[in-house]
């Protein structure tokens, strides 16, 4: 049997699972769309992982979760480490490129810049209130133009002369694109123009005031788009590396963090096992707690009839009721 560590990254758009061995080599990766149902995505992803057969002969020694659904997936799988996306992405990139200085990460709903110094996060920034220029905006534009998002990069690469598109705001970008399209500019040039405007927006917004030094690594689901990579290289004037497993870097990072913790603490993993995850029926429900004027929306996660977790209550009344029960048992 080989020791393995499971890393799960649940983002707004995609859910990724990876299995790594204790040398940080990737054994298997699963990438699927969250489609608004993180529980279903995690279970399907885990089932797919079991189906590939790569889990046979591997003992899971630790589990880490990251991404905006990290708390939810931690309950489902039994996670040892729950980490934010910034740390997870930085750990994975720094392992792969020990001298990396800048990480550009663009996901479905947010984009980040991470500045590293000697392999350690030294500064970071995330997009604030606006999601212009992230994966979901690209998705939306692709479907409006009736182009498969997978083809977006290839089409952009055909462009000879990118048109200028306003990237400050998603709404302006869209009306600019429609205007240019009605004027008769070729589709390729408009797509490339969009890529460049997104990069300018990213650098002005997320990368504002940050000194971007090479080596630069570009990761996250949007790194699949060759047009964006080309736009980054053109505007930054330096080469940009896209790791082989750019789409699951967060999951790899958190799997590595789980390994680090388990090897350091020598604890036994909280991992719930295949039967728990695949055989049960998981449901979430929410209700408004009327206990005080805060009227918290309390979320409850159940497996069959057993309550696994509560959250959302500010006073922790519901959350603590559960731990009391488990202690009593």
């Amino acid at each position, binding site marked *: 049997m080989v020791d393995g560590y499971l890393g799960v990254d649940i983002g707004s758009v995609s859910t990724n699972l990876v299995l790594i061995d204790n040398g940080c080599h990737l054994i298997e990766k699963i990438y699927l769309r969250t489609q608004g149902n993180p529980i279903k995505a995690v279970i399907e992803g885990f089932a797919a992982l079991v189906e590939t057969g790569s889990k046979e002969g591997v003992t899971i020694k630790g589990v880490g979760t990251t991404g*905006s659904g990290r*708390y939810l997936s*931690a309950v489902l799988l039994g*996670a*040892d*480490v*729950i*980490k*934010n*996306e*910034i*740390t997870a992405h930085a750990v994975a990139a720094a392992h792969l490129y020990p001298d990396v200085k800048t990480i550009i990460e663009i996901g479905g709903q*947010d984009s980040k810049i991470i500045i590293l110094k000697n392999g*350690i*996060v*030294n*500064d*970071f920034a*995330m997009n*604030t*209130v606006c999601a212009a220029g992230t994966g979901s905006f690209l998705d939306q534009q692709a479907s409006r133009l009736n182009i498969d998002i997978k083809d977006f990069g290839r089409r952009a690469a055909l462009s000879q002369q990118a048109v200028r598109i306003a990237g400050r705001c998603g709404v302006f970008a869209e009306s600019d694109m429609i205007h240019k399209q009605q004027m008769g500019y070729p589709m390729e040039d408009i797509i490339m123009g969009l890529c460049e405007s997104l990069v300018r927006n990213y650098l002005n917004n997320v990368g504002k*005031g940050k000194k971007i030094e090479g080596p630069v690594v570009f990761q996250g689901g949007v790194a699949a788009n060759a047009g964006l990579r080309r736009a980054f290289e053109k505007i930054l004037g330096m080469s940009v590396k896209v790791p082989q497993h750019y789409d699951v870097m967060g999951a790899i990072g958190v799997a590595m963090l789980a390994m680090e*913790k388990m090897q*350091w*603490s020598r*604890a036994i993993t*909280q991992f719930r096992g295949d039967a728990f995850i695949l055989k049960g029926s998981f449901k979430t429900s929410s209700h408004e707690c009327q206990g*005080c*004027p*805060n*009227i*918290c929306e309390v979320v409850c996660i159940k497996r069959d009839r057993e309550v696994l977790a509560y959250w959302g209550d*500010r006073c922790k009344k519901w959350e603590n009721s559960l731990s009391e029960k488990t202690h009593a048992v």
Partner: protein
Amino acid sequence: MRVGIPRGLFYHYYYPLWKTFFQDLGAEVVTSASTNRRTVERGIESAVDEVCFPIKVYYGHVRELCHQELNYIFIPRLVSVEPKSYICPNFMGLPDMINSALPELPPVIDITVDVSKNDRLLKRDIIRVGQIFTDNKNHIKQAYQHGQDELHKCRNICRDGYNISEAIRIWDGEQIVLPSTYNINIGVLGHGYSLYDQTISMNLIDRLRKMGCRVQVVETLDRDAIEVKAAEIPKRVFWTLGRKSVGSALYMEGQSEIDGIIYLACFGCGPDSMIGEIIERKIKNKAFMMINIDEHTGEAGMVTRLEAFCDMLRRRAGKVEDYISAHG
């Protein structure tokens, strides 16, 4: 006589003064509950659109008090609380804004606090307000002086690491125990009425404490040292709270035990858009993060940022994480 004091805005700085003053004059002081979802909902419903979030929440506090059979509601008109410095202009019109929006409002006591040039006007207005309750001018002056003394007492509580809002709760008889274990030190700045309100700030300070941080705020620092640092800016910042934030940030930058600085800005705040930017540009040698808040209740974005910030500081300092909890 019952006087209502809304638990918002400068309540977080001056409540001991106001409460003592009215009580000494024989009034019963009633406050609204701590900001909760209903306060926020009511506030957003009645407030004009262009004011900042904490002012909208203040409307909610006032509305809560409207139904409590009060003789008066206290809504001060704060223009300036120290020489040559001002409070945001929205506060100058606060009693008028509220008055026009809420017809069910009890009679308003709107004292004008403007000591930008001298305190003559304020002194006259204190007497005017006091005469609602008594004709004895000496009594009024004594009540005000007593209020000042209580405020001073309350501010001294901050020396033990409490922010002014916590100090007020302690002054009012509550017990608050700060966690004693921490391995990073974070300076947190912002307007107190946003930062110290647990609902508006989404409990930022306590979240950091739970993540193993010691939190330093404006009130835990030396007042004079802050002013010295604030004077380093080429043009004097004339907003009281903004100047203290800038001074504190610069002071903290020079303190080796502070690992990082967080600035909580309110999306619709005019001064914040300036002050946050100034601090961000001036802080060169310490980790700095700006967090923007508004009406949204999604806490995920804030939690992610705070976690990442703490992780970064720990890993930078080479501090091994204490693997007590997986959360964080």
